[in-house]
């Protein structure tokens, strides 16, 4: 009998749960910018997120993470500590990784932002995402999108990193399940395949 891996167990039990659940498909909620009373109106900013232009009215003290999640509905970016420590909120701004919880949306005016939602093209996953699955990187999954974005930033600038370089590149993303080694393996495996897609 084929041994049961953790992955195949989760896949199967996941299918079971889906079948048992009520049938209506879950639709992702659509988020709109919260309409503000006139006296609270902030300023209009322009962001290019995953290649798409957005004009938004924001308040000065809103973080980029808040705007991505609560106003653009891009909830793949997680907010863990909200203090620039855990890395779950990592996105790319003009190609460089940063903690979106610790950066104001108004500071991102005119910038290009990449979030985890931009990695896959349709149903075609990014090689990094494939490798993360293959190497069982995600455990609880909360840190995964941040791990992916840090890995993406690394491979964009350094397609064939050494192990030490990859460790450094992922140092700002904390995995509470402590699956650091699997994430590292996945990144190194992707770089071995000639880098992740553009």
């Amino acid at each position, binding site marked *: 009998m084929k041994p049961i891996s953790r992955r195949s167990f989760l896949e199967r039990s996941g299918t079971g749960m889906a079948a048992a659940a009520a049938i209506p498909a879950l639709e992702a909620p659509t988020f709109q910018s919260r309409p503000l009373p006139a006296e609270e109106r902030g300023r209009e900013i322009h962001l290019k997120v995953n290649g798409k232009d957005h004009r938004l009215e924001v308040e000065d*003290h809103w973080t980029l993470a808040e705007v991505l999640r609560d106003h653009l509905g891009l909830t793949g970016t997680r907010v863990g500590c*909200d*203090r*620039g420590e855990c890395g779950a909120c990592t996105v790319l701004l003009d190609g460089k990784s940063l903690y979106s919880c*610790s950066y104001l949306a108004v500071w991102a005016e005119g910038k290009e932002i990449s979030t985890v939602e931009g990695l896959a093209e349709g149903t075609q996953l990014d090689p990094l995402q494939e490798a993360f699955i293959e190497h069982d990187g995600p455990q609880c999954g909360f840190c995964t999108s941040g791990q992916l974005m840090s890995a993406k930033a690394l491979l964009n600038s350094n397609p064939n990193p050494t192990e030490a370089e990859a460790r450094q590149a992922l140092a*700002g993303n904390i995995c509470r399940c402590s699956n650091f080694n699997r994430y590292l393996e996945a990144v190194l495996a992707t770089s071995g395949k000639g880098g992740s897609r553009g």
Partner: protein
Amino acid sequence: MKSFTNVNPKDPQEAAALLKKAIEKGQTASLAGGGSDLLGMIKDDLVGPDVVVNLKGLSALREIESHSQGVRIGGLVTLEELSQHPLIRSQYTVLAEAAGTVATPQIRNVGTVAGNICQRPWCWYFRQGFPCFKHGGDRCYSVVGQNQLHAIFGGGPSFIVHPSDTAPALMALEARFRIVGPHGERVVPASEFFILPREDVSRENVLEPDEVLVEIELPPAVQNGRSTYVKIMDREAWTHAVLSVAMALEINDGVCRKARVVLGAVAPIPWRLPNVERILVGQRITADLAGDAGRAAVSRAQPLAKNGYKIPLTEALVRRTLLSLAG
């Protein structure tokens, strides 16, 4: 997070004027270079600015420029840019290494060199909002509290340690800081920029509330100069130094002609060791001399109840760094 108004000055003079204007109106104002630490402090209610003066638009301060009198580093150069810059890496190694050890890639991509120099302490009492000297209170909670990471030099009445990695490196390189205020400019040597709590317990440097640190000037690189930054952490990444040393030596024909030794994370300011430097100058760096230097480094240390381990650690760090740099 508390709300505030973000303003985007176009030059340092306008930034200083905006700070001054806010203060005159009875408001509080904060500067944001990278802004990461500032936003954390606002979220934790440690500061509550009405106005955030965002310096990110000051593109003139994003350059590293080499000229006949040395190198000019704009205050907004990021720690990542500094750590990767070929000239800084080759001629001012201690600074590139120090910048490369700060925090994480995400912070280094945003965090600026001026912000790193001017960051507030990371004492856990200060960061938890205890009403300590730094928050206008009447005591330093570390004195009878958890003081494992606190000062062994220069403490009192506050025993914070200066958290910056680049600051000891800049002191070892004899950098000068250009400061812009509402009434003009001044240039302050790194060695006079930081101030001890006994001088003014409310702040860590000479900057007035309406002044901006805009540029760092490095003297010309010395021939036969070599320098390094070694940071001891309680894990391998993503934390402040438990202890660090920035060391710059000039060695001609095997003899040390000049030495700058500055410790990080042992005192409320980057802690230069002139007595160690004197031991080294004019000598060949041998194991015996390095041992003497290590012992001299800690001869005036005054530990608190729980940070005595920093003394043998400092002694070993100075000795080993000296030998590896001279070797």
